């Protein structure tokens, strides 16, 4: 029983990261029509940013977990914005596949540079003082940091959903997703919106990276395999809806956790198998709209 709940908890944690990453991918895809292959590398950069702030700091001042939660997404988001302005924006008129190829190349560069610098062994990142320890719930032991990650990622996801679906800014965004030319004709600066959206999606990945740093070790390749699973999550959920991305992310995390308990050998493939089944039954994805 202990083990089952333990795996469920790990599943929920993984699901939280799937949800945050696929959410970022979906937001970017909605407006830019590209799949951001650098997403995994940007998640890794978020974790490294936090590690760097803690161990080296800015101008000698070491910064812990809480400032990192804000600084890392902004820093990585700015790098994302530079990438969008200098490179991606040249490709919008071309086949969308070029965006995928470009971001794939960028991911290779970023991961290569980090491996050169830090090797491929993981580096530990301490859990912040306030969130150490755990609670005994009777049926299982719940580390506080893990509970915090689940709650925080849920909040982040729901806030993102609220901004996009319920605010004026979000309505511009959704309108520009449907018909950018028309929205531009109404006097809204669509290119700037595209840039900021990309920065936001990338920032989300970096935020997930900071939150992941104390759980998984900080490692140059921590995002490389993860991003492929997230792609499968995105195919399963379909990129049509924000809530869909969140639900699929958490749901698949739980399914993966359960598989780890009942049939450990299948746990690394279960999400891909589900993808195959979904493609057979509902090619557009669970929450997707056929375009």
């Amino acid at each position, binding site marked *: 029983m202990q083990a089952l709940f333990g795996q469920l908890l790990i599943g929920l944690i993984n699901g939280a990261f799937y949800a945050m990453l696929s959410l970022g991918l979906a937001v970017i895809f909605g407006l830019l029509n590209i799949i951001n292959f650098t997403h995994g590398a940007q998640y890794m950069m978020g974790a490294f940013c936090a590690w760097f702030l803690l161990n080296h700091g800015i101008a000698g001042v070491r910064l812990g977990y809480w400032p990192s939660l804000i600084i890392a997404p902004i820093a990585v988001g700015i790098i994302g914005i530079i990438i969008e302005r200098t490179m991606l924006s040249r490709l919008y008129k071309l086949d969308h596949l070029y965006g995928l*190829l470009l971001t794939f190349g960028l991911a290779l560069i970023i991961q290569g540079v980090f491996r*050169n610098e830090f090797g491929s062994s993981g580096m530990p990142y301490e859990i912040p003082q306030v969130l150490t320890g755990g609670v005994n719930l009777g049926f299982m032991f719940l580390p506080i940091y893990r509970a915090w990650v689940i709650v925080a990622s849920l909040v982040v996801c729901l806030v993102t959903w609220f901004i996009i679906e319920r605010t004026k800014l979000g309505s511009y965004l959704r309108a520009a997703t449907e018909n950018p030319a028309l929205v531009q004709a109404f006097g809204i600066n669509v290119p700037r919106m595209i840039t900021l959206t990309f920065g936001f999606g990338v920032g989300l990945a970096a935020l997930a990276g900071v939150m992941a740093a104390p759980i998984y070790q900080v490692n140059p390749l921590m995002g490389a395999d993860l991003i492929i699973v997230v792609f499968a999550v995105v195919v399963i959920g379909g990129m049509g809806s924000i809530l869909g991305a969140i639900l699929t992310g958490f749901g698949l995390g739980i399914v993966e956790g359960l598989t780890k308990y009942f049939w450990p050998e299948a746990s690394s*493939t279960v999400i891909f198998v589900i993808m195959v089944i979904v493609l057979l039954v509902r090619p557009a994805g669970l929450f997707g709209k056929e375009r």
Partner: protein
Amino acid sequence: MAAIAEAAAVRAASRNGVFAATLVMTVLLAIAPFAGVYPVFIMKALCFALFACAFNLLLGFGGLLSFGHAMFLGTAGYVCAYAAKVWGLTPEVAILAGTASSAALGTLVGALAIRRQGIYFAMITLAIAQMMYFFYVQAPFTHGEDGIQAVPRGRLFGVIDLADPLTMYYTVLVVFVAAFALIVRIIHSPFGQVLKAIRENEPRAISLGYDADRYKLLAFVLSATLAGLAGALKAIVFQLAALTDVYWTMSGEVVLMTLLGGMGTIFGPVVGAFLIVALENYLAGLGEWVTIITGIIFVVCVLAFRRGIVGELAAWWTARRR
């Protein structure tokens, strides 16, 4: 009418050009071992060139970007290595077994992946390839990280001993040239023309009565089969089938070879494969720099050099002749 005749003449000229260039390439490759080029290097490059040509058939002529082609290279490699080592089959039968297994896998994956288009197609093929990777990591017959080692090269048709490097070399060359000729034939066949029509404008091709999905599936299976042939050949040449051949980095590498050489050109993938294999050979001591340089080539190709080397040369040649 005159325009049609002229177009036919241009096409005939380009076909003659392709034939002449293929001949030159074959002769150059045939004398290369005597010109002091290391045969193992060319054999490796030829295996990858075949892999890239197979991939280019799908991307350059079908417009379908598969980001999981490593699964066909690797699957055929494993099956071929297993057949040659454990079952003790002769190399040609082992290679056929490997190729057939990739054809079967290609049929299944293709039928699934063509249900979605564009970016989704790329993500689905990548995800399925990753699933296959995890399968091979765990499956006992692949020996995990070690791979299937010391695969016997055996005797071709039970007679010709492939342990001799030059014999092996010319066997690889014959297989490569035959497969290359087949790919050129496919591209110039009515099937290839319909495939191009579907790439350019799928709804119109459908409205003309072509069953687009069937054509795409056939292109996918052909591509997977030929990629499998490359993988099986590679397993015999290097006497090894390993996990790197099914990992996603390998899928990325074949995209890079095709992109660098020129996608949608006939010789581009060959040029790209030779360049990338040479690059990896010379930079092998630099560790992670290979990844970085690979990434940089990707970025430069996409931003400034989308036609690739052969594509740019062809464009320059046409512009000069006007």
